[in-house]
């Protein structure tokens, strides 16, 4: 049995081998390995599981390859709406935040909410006020936005004007 172990993900979706160039695959592999190494280093040194989680996720939040933090996808209005959650297994304390657009590392806010202990889930302006009160780094929304995600939003909006695509999107988005 392993003394410590860790698993990470950077999202799942319609990834096709055809669309993945060797260069792009190498970029993703290197980014994932760096994040995994950051978490493993904490655990190898005897650190806590929750610190390993933070080491991994703050790294991925700063990497524009992934849909979290910088490089997140854009909302219909062209902004960002970031969410994060955190839980520890020994006490089952938990924290979560939704609808953020200024907190650089949403995972740190989720952890701060958990450690504060008054609530589990905060959203929007109130969550950002809480983040500011706890000294978490704030950035302009523009910091999160990348040209790749802006292009994706433009394509998404254009598709809404195509009757056939709009129909398909509508069918696809019946989540409730």
């Amino acid at each position, binding site marked *: 049995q392993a003394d410590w172990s860790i698993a990470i993900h950077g999202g799942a979706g319609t990834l096709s081998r055809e669309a993945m160039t060797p260069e792009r695959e190498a970029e993703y592999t290197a980014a994932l390995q760096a994040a995994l190494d950051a978490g493993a280093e904490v655990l190898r040194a005897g650190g806590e599981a929750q610190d390993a989680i933070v080491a991994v996720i703050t790294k991925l939040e700063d990497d524009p390859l992934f849909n979290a933090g910088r490089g997140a996808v854009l909302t219909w209005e062209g902004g960002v709406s970031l969410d994060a959650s955190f839980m520890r297994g020994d006490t089952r304390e938990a924290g979560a935040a939704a609808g953020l657009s200024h907190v650089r590392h949403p995972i740190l806010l989720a952890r701060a909410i958990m450690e504060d202990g008054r609530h589990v889930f905060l*959203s929007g302006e109130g969550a950002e006020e809480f983040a500011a009160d706890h000294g978490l780094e704030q950035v302009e929304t523009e910091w999160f936005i990348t040209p790749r995600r802006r292009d994706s939003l433009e394509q998404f909006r254009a598709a809404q004007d195509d009757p056939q695509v709009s129909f398909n999107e509508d069918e696809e988005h019946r989540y409730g």
Partner: protein
Amino acid sequence: TVGAVARDVRGNLAAGTSTGGTTGKRWGRIGDSPVIGAGTYADNRACAVSATGTGEYFLRAGVAQGICAMMRLAGMDAQAAADQLIVEVGEMGGDGGVIVVSATGETAFSFNTSGMYRGRADSIGLNEIAIFTD
């Protein structure tokens, strides 16, 4: 979406998930966020889970907490429990995946998409990164 689950040398588990949601989302939608119990969960008695995918389906299936409950109450291993919940998500029309670490340090991935950016490591020497199904 990105996420991590870990077990430290004291046997404590933790899970975290962070996401930018979905392109073009409106109306303050939060169903695609990693809600505790659906997208993120940790319980030292069973496992820690982080999910990615169409969040509303993970909410409806209670995926993350469900995996832990199956392991704790039915004695399933991490892979079997994760696979079962991902099948349920798929049957409802959702897609995505989960990463799991058990109370004994076993790690598992399960997803119904063509790939998931993922990696795992442990104190025995496991160190792997993968993207596609195989």
